[in-house]
């Protein structure tokens, strides 16, 4: 099950060995030999902490950032030497970058004017797009009078108007409040599905990435750490970095023998086919089951955090690192109580060696 599975659609974007260095040539590159392909009509989300090179990746595709090595192909054509304005891609900037001296219609119609679209067509397209993003009849409004969410919608309409073959979004929901963000993610996914837009987005928020994307690309220090569908990445984080970035902290040293692994937490079941030898294991919190005290691995409840749908527990076993567990509110023990735990095989993940 590779990331490119099921893509019968033609390939729209391909990055081959793209490397970008800022400053000294011997310094750590912002992008380090990145390979990435995006199929037509696919929504790909690049996920990573700040400084992992996500935004640089978009700037390279847009032609705003020179590469030190590697190639960018759009619809099979090498883009080296093609200036930004001839690449036919759209980019929605992190802080929108709406033109302050133009009204909403002026902003949305900008890309159409650059292509010499007739005035009537411009007006028609602007009206249709503003309808689409939920701001009907906002043409004459001043950019300064828009709220953050409205600016985001106008920026989206502006990026969509010239029908770019690839739409790129840089932290599209960064400055919005949570409720608006969650609603917009759903709306956008529907919208992109209807329009058949190919999308390459970057974000540091896994929730956004999982909700929006067909495929997620996790980046670490300018390299791709893992690609896969949101479910694959969530269920099988490839490395300890990815696991911890997704918020999974139950990582432990282990030595695999047959279908079990020896860890400081005792013997854990491992998936079939795991090779023998030392490795690191992840147990997702959902896979930690609480048992009445004499059974299982004895632990003390070190902390409990109410999370709305469930209670997150931090458990301290006699030996080894702390264990995170999740349980329903009625079953949750108090801080300081003694509990026993057992581990479910389907929630144990064998991690690859760290990418360092």
């Amino acid at each position, binding site marked *: 099950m590779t990331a490119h599975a099921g893509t019968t659609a033609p390939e729209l974007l391909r990055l081959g060995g793209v490397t970008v260095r800022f400053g000294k040539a011997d310094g750590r590159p912002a992008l380090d030999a990145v390979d990435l392909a995006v199929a037509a009509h696919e929504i790909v989300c690049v996920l990573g902490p700040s400084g992992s090179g996500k935004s640089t990746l978009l700037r390279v595709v847009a032609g705003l950032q020179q590469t030190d090595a590697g190639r960018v192909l759009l619809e099979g054509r090498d883009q080296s030497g093609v200036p930004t304005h001839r690449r036919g891609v759209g980019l929605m900037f992190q802080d929108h970058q709406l033109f302050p001296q*133009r009204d909403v219609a002026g902003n949305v119609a900008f890309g159409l004017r650059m292509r010499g679209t007739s005035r009537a067509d411009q007006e028609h397209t602007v009206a249709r797009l503003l309808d689409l993003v939920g701001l009907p009849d906002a043409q004459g409004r001043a950019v300064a009078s828009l709220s953050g969410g409205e600016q985001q919608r106008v920026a989206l309409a502006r990026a969509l108007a010239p029908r770019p073959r690839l739409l790129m979004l840089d932290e599209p929901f960064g400055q919005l409040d949570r409720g608006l963000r969650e609603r917009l993610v759903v709306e956008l996914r529907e919208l992109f599905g209807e329009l058949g837009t190919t999308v390459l987005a970057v974000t540091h928020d896994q929730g956004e990435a999982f909700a929006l994307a067909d495929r997620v690309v996790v980046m670490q220090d300018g390299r791709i750490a893992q690609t896969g569908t949101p479910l694959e990445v969530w269920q099988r984080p490839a490395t300890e970095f990815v696991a911890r970035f997704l918020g999974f902290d139950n990582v432990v040293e282990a030595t695999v023998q047959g279908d079990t692994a020896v860890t400081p937490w005792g013997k854990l079941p491992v998936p079939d086919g795991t090779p023998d030898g030392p490795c690191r294991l992840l147990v997702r919190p959902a896979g930690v089951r609480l048992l009445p005290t004499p059974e299982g691995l004895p632990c003390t409840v070190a902390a409990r955090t109410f999370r709305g749908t469930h209670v997150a527990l931090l458990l301290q076993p006699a030996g080894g690192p702390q264990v995170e567990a999740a349980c329903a509110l009625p079953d949750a023990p108090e801080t300081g109580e003694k509990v026993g735990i057992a581990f479910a095989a389907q929630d144990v993940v064998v991690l690859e060696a760290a990418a360092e």
Partner: protein
Amino acid sequence: MALPFAFFALFFAYPVASIVGRGLKDGGQWQLGRIGAVLTDPDVLHVLWFTFWQAAASTGLTLLIALPGAYVFARFDFPGKQLLRALVAVPFVLPTVVVGSAFLALVGRGGLLDDLWGVRLDTSVWAILLAHVFFNYAVVVRTVGGLWGQLDPRQEEAARVLGAGRFAAWRRVTLPALGPAVAAAALMVFLFTFTSFGVVQILGGPTFSTLEVEIYRQTADFLDLPTAAVLTLIQFTAVLGLLALHAWTVRRRESALKLVDPAQTARRPHGRGQWALLWTTLVVIVLLLVLPLAVLVERSFAGTDGYGPVFYETLQSAATADSTFAVAPLDALWNSLAFGAVATVIALVVGGLAAAALTRRGGRLVRGFDALLMLPLGVSAVTVGFGFLITLDRPPFDLRSSWWLVPLAQALVGVPFVVRTMLPVLRAVDGRLREAAAVLGASPWRVWREVDLPLVRRALLVAAGFAFAVSLGEFGATVFIARPDHPTLPVAVARLLGRAGELNYGQAMALSTILMVVCAGALLALERIRTDHSGEF
């Protein structure tokens, strides 16, 4: 990039180089020994020292008086602000000869202060310094105030919330942001006062003399071209040093600023302190700027038998004056307007292209060109005018009899203003706005037109206003190259002042008043256009 470069090579470097060459060459041999001889002359050293310290003192005094004014214009909203803003710029464009006379009438023997309190300043350096402040007040208010009005006040508020006092917030947040503009303004004032000519000649008497005055004396009075050439070189070197220093400070402090609509940052004054500041500024403007102009107007109406428009009526015919003019003095007005309009267009095209090129590219060569653009401000206008005459009078550039000569010379002085006004604003435009336009399919030229131009339109209008005003008031170079039957207003004024007689003096004052009204009208019109457009925000 190529056009501005060619423009400067042909109309600036070539004439100046050839006049210096003429002074220092004797029968095809370079006589560099002359430099040493002139440099050790105690009279020359005295002139050098005076030129330097009066320029420094004038610059300091101007900043001291005008910076509060810049604040008032940037942050306060009060009735009559537009009018006052235009009024403040008027002194800057008046011919130096007229200003000198006006100040003499104010602080000299038999002047207003002499009549009232027996105070005379014409023998002290104070008259020169005050006249310099009179001239350059607008430079600081416009250059610094223009940017100040566009700075986001919330930046300062953020500092206040973080515990900075009112003054500390200004010093730590606003001042660094204003730094390049203050440096640019201070540099301009220093350059103008360093090369000051008309004011010093009239108010300085025999005691005080600047380099420029000395160059003029050596050229026009003593016909001592070698000494004049050496002095020109000294002035050139000093100006070059100043410009290098300026480029260095600006580059160190340059930063992208968050600009906002100035209409949103201006508020009505609030509290006793702010009202006091506003009134102090108004009083300063009235005493320092309006009073000399008022004296000028008063004189233009003061005929031998009481007040009346006698002098204005006689301006329309060539016959009433003695043989000063082949044409009616009033024709000088139409000449000036036509020359000024053409010069403004040339200056805007050349300066706009240069500023755009300077924003886009880096590199040593381009930075050098940045400084080069400022040179016409520092090189003696007398030298440029004289240089035009002796170099552009033969093929391939026989422009001596061409109508274009005057606007070209005037544009030369206007270009630095255009570049200086536009560059800080262009550089402060957020680069990502340009990127956003490029991603949407705009070519580099379209990006400039669609993103930069609308954002700097205000600066562009200010630049146009300055270029036009400078062209109208330009005297030093124009006096050499204007044809006798096509005088400009300042040239006509100077000719009239040069003749004895009540009628000539009165006509000079009348023409000066007309020049003043034209400049004020032009500047006021620009303010009006700007307001209409800022409504788009």
